[in-house]
């Protein structure tokens, strides 16, 4: 199967908009990027490679995405910071019905009054489908290489 240039740019648009929404702090938009039946998981590469299921963060429904979003926005306690997702080129295969995409990412985190550091590096492993005319993530695995997370991850990645 090949991915047409039009579909490719649509996929890139989705992947880009997702990262921008988070970096811009528009967390309330985060669940919208997912299909109604969805899985979002941040998982350490050491677990992923060993077939261990534990995620750093796991949402397996739209409701859980909403709950997480509200926790990040209102409930959790953390200092002010900026995030910057740097994305690699999107590698997309599969078909219009089910797109399989992989994209490298690095997240730079800048805490108020401190040096910018790398929060984590890894890759998105996505399954993308079309729902109500829009591309959505049915599955988004964020597989991170970083051995030691510097303190905490206080937003979705």
């Amino acid at each position: 199967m090949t991915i047409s240039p039009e579909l490719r740019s649509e996929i890139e648009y989705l992947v880009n908009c997702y990262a921008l929404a988070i970096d811009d702090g528009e967390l309330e938009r985060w669940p919208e990027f997912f299909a109604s039946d969805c899985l979002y998981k941040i998982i350490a590469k050491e677990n992923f490679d060993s077939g261990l299921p534990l995620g750093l963060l796991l949402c397996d429904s739209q409701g859980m995405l909403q709950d997480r979003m509200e926790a990040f926005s209102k409930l959790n306690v953390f200092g002010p910071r900026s995030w910057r997702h740097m994305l690699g080129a999107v590698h997309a295969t599969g078909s219009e019905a089910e797109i399989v995409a992989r994209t490298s990412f690095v997240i730079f985190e800048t805490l108020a009054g401190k040096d910018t550091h790398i929060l984590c590096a890894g890759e998105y492993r996505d399954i993308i489908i079309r729902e109500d005319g829009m591309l959505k993530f049915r599955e988004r695995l964020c597989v991170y290489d970083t051995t030691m997370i510097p303190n905490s991850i206080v937003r979705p990645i």
Partner: protein
Amino acid sequence: MGEALLSWPDGNDRVPYWIYTDQGNYERELEKIFYGPVWNYVGLECEIPNSGDFKRTQIGDQSIIVVRDAEGGVNALVNRCAHRGVKLCEQDKGSFSEIMCPYHQWTYDLKGNLQGVPFHRGVKGNGGMPADFSMADNGLDVLKVHVRNGGIFATMSDETPSFESCMGERILGYYDRELDGRTLSLLGHSRQRIGANWKLMLENIKDTHHASLLHVFFVTFGLFRVDNDSRVEMDDTGLHTALSSIRGKQELNDGTAQMRSFDSDLALNDPNLLDVVREFPGDETVVMQTLWPNVILQQQSNTLATRQIVPKGPNAFELHWTFFGYEDDDEEMTARRLRQANLMGPAGLVSMDDGQILERTQEGILAHPDEQGVVELGGRDTDDADHMVTEVALRAFYKGYRKVMGL
């Protein structure tokens, strides 16, 4: 730092800040605590189920290989070649049948015995090791290991009393409640580095009442809150603590009314997260154990984990989380444990707050080694309590710490 600073104020209700920041004190802690007569947690048997399986871990500043040998025994070996000091193992985990140093190919068996030295007898009559070179005397440094119900502990000291007598009957009771002899199944790891002194992590778990104030999520859903039926119990040294508690309701009462973080209207869109089933004897829904010196063994609802504390100098530590279940868990139970794991770890709905606040604590005290913290909630004694509105476990902890450190 002047000598005057390195003294302890009178009483158990003040903690001097230099113990969190002083490099000399940190080095004494390595010697007296981590390399001393204690049982350091080094892992779970389910991480190395088969012969040859190993994991790399750390005790204090030292790198340690924990490996299962051909006979099924568990060994803990210092990760340093006996020849020239090369770090033998770089992988975090894996499997091997022998340990070979890549530099000059000294080879050890999985018990740490030296098995082979290239050119031992020389080449064409030249060189070789002296005739009296002893293979037996040049093995790896081997630690004493104790395994109890799937938990692996190691000690560097010959003076360490038995694991059972170090823990005491009461703490062992809680330990055996969670690690009850069933085979454990490994769910995965997460690891984070927190810019705070290692003792602050133990304190965080011993400090029962912060959960009612800092953690909105806990507070609102009653998972761990001062108005819950609770107990704080210590061993005779005060160094180990078991906190146990029974989940409360989402209701306004004289406890929750004093918590600014309580929100009686908060509801989960997907209540599956808190689909908790009872699986242990007794009514307790949370048991948090801090086992001296380096591990937290925890049950919060159906999420089970160890948190290994690896100190990194006075101003930082790593937290290595291992989440597990039991071999006889069905699919539904495993899914439940994985969902509830959202509460914990570096992005935990609850423990995220702790990582942040511990670093802020370190930043707050860094420039003030001569000041001291107040631990007077619940009185000035060090006795067990049948409620959570107390800092008694901190007072008991520092009573024990002072004795170990000779302070």
